[in-house]
């Protein structure tokens, strides 16, 4: 069992945990993820590691309630424990000096870019972060990112805070600004967002890396459930990734495969919630669609 040493709500339905996992904390690098399981009947789900503190032996996880498992996880409090935490898994981010690296995070994907910002800064980059949320209360990790970033650009759909619009709009501004000289873009978030980011950077021919989040079971290459198509080749996100060249990823296929269990997930969630209605999953999908459409228009 892996004890939770702190738990707090960062935004509606978004929770941050510090979890005692000394072995994971010791070996964590930017880009790594863990697989967790909640309860003896729980499923295994991948979560990215937002931070680690090897000295204290803890890792930080950021979790959004999107289904039965994440809801059970977010119901846990300080002092309780997560049944299983295994990792760090995946290959770490390839950290290079790109000159100016722009990180784009959407939703809990913002937690993925946080350790990347730290590592890229340490490697000598100018680092900017573009982070998005529906409105001000959904913008997370702004203060934390500011520790390592030369600039942080929060974006909100409703204009309640920062840039009024999607992250893609702000990113395009940076790419078009000759003073910014963007050398690389690293992105993590919902699939439609990453797909839109890839389309925004493609005409600028800027290296773009996306952290993918396909369906996974074991996380060690054994099941092949996380297979994605990159440059026409089958790759396993857990052992070959999770980060890939965003211009080569078949995002349409990834998005479609992520819906494989929508029917069962709905049932499980209803069971877990005593059929209480919840729309946040649907809502974020609608938002992602709007973002994609907006990017297509740009």
């Amino acid at each position, binding site marked *: 069992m892996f004890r939770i040493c702190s738990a707090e709500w960062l935004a509606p339905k978004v929770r941050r945990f510090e979890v005692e996992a000394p072995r994971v904390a010791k070996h964590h690098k930017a880009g790594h993820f863990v697989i967790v399981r909640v309860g003896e009947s729980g*499923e295994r789900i991948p979560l990215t590691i937002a931070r680690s503190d090897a000295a204290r032996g803890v890792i930080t996880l950021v979790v959004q309630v999107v289904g*039965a*498992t994440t809801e059970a996880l977010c119901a846990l409090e300080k002092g309780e424990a997560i049944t*299983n935490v*295994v990792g760090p898994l995946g290959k770490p981010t390839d950290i290079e000096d790109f000159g100016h690296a722009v990180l784009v995070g959407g939703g809990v994907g913002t937690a993925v870019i946080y350790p990347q910002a730290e590592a890229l800064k340490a490697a000598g980059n100018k680092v900017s972060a573009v982070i998005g949320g529906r409105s001000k209360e959904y913008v997370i990790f702004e203060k934390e990112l500011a520790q390592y970033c030369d600039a942080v650009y929060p974006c909100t759909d409703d204009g309640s805070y920062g840039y009024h619009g999607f992250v893609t709009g702000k990113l395009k501004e940076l790419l078009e600004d000759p003073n910014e000289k963007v050398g690389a873009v690293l992105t993590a978030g919902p699939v439609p967002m990453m797909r839109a980011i890839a389309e925004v950077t493609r005409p600028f021919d800027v290296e773009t890396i996306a952290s993918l989040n396909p369906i996974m079971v074991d996380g060690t290459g054994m*099941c092949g459930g996380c297979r994605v198509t990159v440059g026409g080749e089958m790759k396993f996100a857990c052992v070959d990734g999770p980060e890939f060249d965003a211009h080569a990823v078949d995002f349409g296929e990834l998005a479609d495969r992520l819906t494989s269990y929508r029917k069962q997930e709905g049932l499980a969630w209803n069971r877990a919630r005593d059929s209480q209605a919840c729309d946040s999953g649907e809502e974020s999908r609608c938002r992602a669609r709007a973002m994609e459409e907006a990017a297509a228009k740009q």
Partner: protein
Amino acid sequence: MKPSERMKIPRQEMPELDAGVRATNFAEVNRGFAPAAACTEAERCLQCKDAKCIAGCPVGINIPGFVEALANDDLNTAADILLADNMLPGVTGRVCPQETQCEELCVRAKKGWSVGIGHMERYVADWARMNRPDLFEPPPPTGKKVAIVGSGPAGLTCAGELSKRGHAVTVFEALHKPGGVLVYGIPEFRLPNEVVEAEVETLRTRGVEIICDVVIGQTYTIPELMDEEGFDAVFIANGAGLPIFQNIPGEQLKGVYSANEFLTRVNLMGAHDATASDTPVIRASEIVVCGGGNTAMDGVRTARRLGANPATLVYRRSREEMPARAEEVKHAEEEGVVFQMLTNPVEILGDESGWVRAVRCIRMELGEPDASGRRRPVPIEGSEFEIPCRVFIEAIGTRANPLLTQTTPGLEVNKWGNIVIDENNATSIAGVFAGGDIVRGGATVILAMGDGKNTAHSIHDHLMNGIAGAAAAVAAESAT
């Protein structure tokens, strides 16, 4: 009893659940011998002086010895003899391909039916598990620490053998439950989890430490285990690894699984029972599984139990070439699995929403023998046809997992990524040994156990006498 009398006894049949009933549940198919049948079967053994059967056993069980004790109704002695050579007899009694090992070499197989060694092994193991405490007395500790990577059959066997010699053993398991392929791969109806759990528990009470949720190569590297964690030797038995896909169009459609994923969802995660598990699995009335080995059989029989009718198995060669155990093929057939032999998938077809709707196959015929000695299947031009299905499962093999090897500098692997070992199962790194599927590239439970047992001898020699193993010695020599 005279040999002529023994020869007259017919082979005792294994009682089985009714095929119609078992095709709808996950209860164990083979029910095990009744006491009288076990003794009668034991009396069929001719107690050959030069017992050929032992040579057919990868862990070298004293087969005539335990069978004789069983014939004398001395189950205690039978269990002692069996357990002396085999750490997991309840497992092997159920899943070994006896017909190509011990039972194939039995003299009685030449004229009629071999002695039912596997069924008796299971009987004695089950009796011991349920009727007597573990009589193990720990030897004095040697003070040596050994790390074992993977808690599958090779790792558990090696752990047991090393603990018998007084070494402190820690087994690292990547999943949340020990057992490796015995719990994620082999279904309940063939090997109930409680059998594996009991055998794992025995090792724990003998002092073997098993730590789950640790992926060697990620959570720790091999050099760290040796240099920082204080292990004197390491045995790598992390298994076969990554499932192979055929590289045909349509493999990214929803409803396509590797057998590993499908079986893991059901066996390890319990997805067949939605009231007891949060893990989903896609059910369909029509399922096709591709392959001819035990994994394919496990997949198609699991699909049948999840309600598929028809559950179809396609295999590119003919039934004679199938590598699966004969009993699995028989059971699958009885349970209503449809066999399409000499048939190879060429494309998976999807509907407008991205779900599998059918698999397009081509008929094959057998040509000249290939490198494996089996006749090579050749496609028959123009014979394509479709089999409707909503789930398609590929069970055509695995390739080596790169997680551990790519983080272990100096560990020699072959062109397929499998670890290279010498005759002592030593790798190119001193003190590091390997066995099971990460070396063999996909074999059986019992061969992995044989590797675990043989490697335990080598590790013991290495720890007590400093024999580093030929490969490391050669490496050291060439370095000087």
